[in-house]
């Protein structure tokens, strides 16, 4: 390869690397909490703040699978969480501290995962459609109802080929999966 072509190839690769994958992550970690104490968690259905009506359901399902796949914790069956929430007056996707404590007692869990999908959309850039998903997760311990971990992750879907060459992008479920997987890896690493 000639010397003149090498810089442009490197620039192209750098552009491709920037074009795909994740954006910045924000994270909070409680300095004194012992995470080894958490053996069993419940995932409260995530709140949907996006225009995509299925975004929260999709992310919740993926989150349950990713948490189980991590092998770090046991996860309560989502149907049982929904039923327990229905028994606690006023409980929803953003439970109060008291409601989290009640949920912990009802389900026998040490922590509850709550959160929201703040963005789930296919953004158009010229002729290319790029899915973008942003998920915000909180881990709340059930003795006091206080958050012990929180993180926000934003992922832009589609490979470099999709953006540079205008080929088909990935479905939004894949982008959501990568976003959720990154969050779970931050939590259980």
């Amino acid at each position, binding site marked *: 390869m000639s010397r003149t072509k090498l810089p442009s190839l490197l620039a192209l690769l750098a552009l491709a690397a920037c074009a795909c994958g994740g954006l910045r992550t924000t994270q909070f970690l409680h300095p004194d909490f012992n995470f080894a104490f958490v053996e069993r968690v419940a995932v409260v259905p995530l709140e949907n703040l996006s225009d995509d009506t299925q975004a929260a359901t999709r992310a919740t399902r*993926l989150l349950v*699978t990713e948490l189980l796949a991590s092998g770090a914790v*046991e996860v309560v*069956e*989502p*149907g049982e969480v929904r039923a327990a929430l229905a028994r606690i007056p006023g409980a929803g996707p953003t439970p109060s501290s008291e409601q989290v404590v009640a949920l912990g007692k009802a389900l026998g869990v040490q922590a509850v995962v709550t959160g929201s999908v703040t963005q789930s959309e296919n953004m158009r850039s010229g002729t290319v459609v790029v899915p973008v998903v942003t998920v915000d997760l909180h881990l709340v311990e059930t003795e006091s109802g206080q958050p012990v971990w929180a993180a926000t992750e934003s992922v832009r879907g589609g490979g470099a080929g999709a953006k540079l060459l205008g080929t088909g992008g990935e479905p939004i*479920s*894949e982008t959501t*999966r990568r976003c959720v997987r990154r969050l779970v890896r931050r939590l259980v690493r």
Partner: protein
Amino acid sequence: MRVAWALLLGLAAPVLAADAGGALLPIQDRSGDPALAAEVQAALRARLFPQGEQVDAAGLRDAMRRLRLRDPLEAPPRLLAELAREVGAGWFFAATLHQANREPVPQVTLAAQVLVPAEPDLAWAGFACATGLDGRKLLGRGLVEDAGELARGTARRLADDYLRGARAGHFATRRVPPARGGYLRAPLSAPGLGAVAVIPFDAVTDREAAQHSAVLTDLALAALHRRGVRLVHPGLVAEVLLQRGVQSRGELDGLTRAALGIATPVDHIFTGTAESYRSGATSQVPDPWIAFSARALQVDNGHIVWADGLERRGSDGSGLLERNRVHGAGCLAEQMMEALVGGLVGGSS
């Protein structure tokens, strides 16, 4: 529990002729193509009953109408027993046409179950999918352009699968790689799983969610059956869900789980979620893209004993000259479900 069920259902259906033959129930058409549905029905009838059916088809339809039995898979065995008594049948073959495309590439996706009225278990479950490109050879030979021909061939294959009692079937040579990132609490085997109830999958796909949910539910039944897992009659499951007044899809609360445990001889529950289901059927060379997850729960304590998910495109691992490319969404979903269920029950996939 099985003896109790047999006695209970035996009381409901005291006399079933010992030599009672089978009956082909009217096909459930979810594709919106009644002409192809009729072709499938005719092909199944010819294959299953070459000497002619003992049960009169018109009489069967009338009896179903009288009993208000629309979807046989959601009918409790006691209602099926009543139907069996009226028409003099010993078992029912219930088929569903999930997908039928005529253009640009013909595609057919079929599922079927065999229901024995006096049994709490599902007797058999199968699934078959084909596209006109599946048998394509060099210079375009082997293409099937006529959707009717494809539908008849797929129906015959499904019927043969039942008649042979085949377990591995036609997809044995093309397997999706084992899933990575799954969760398994402890190694399980088909006998170790005991009786499994399949709760209908839910779907978070953009469009046609109900159809995707139905395809994956039927696929789960077929894949578990092929692995030798005992399956609870779907009608029993539907009856419990109906009695509990819940529209459970893809999840189950503790009370419904307990009710299911009491009302049916079930040890584990299997369910999941369709996350993405793109058939790509409008393309000249379809490239389906499917993602779904599934999990198994213990009935007595609600523990999730297994969870896994897969995402695949038809063009993944298509190899030289795209010989291994999968064109049909149903075919791809079938391979994926086989791989996932293989991870749960064990085996070679």
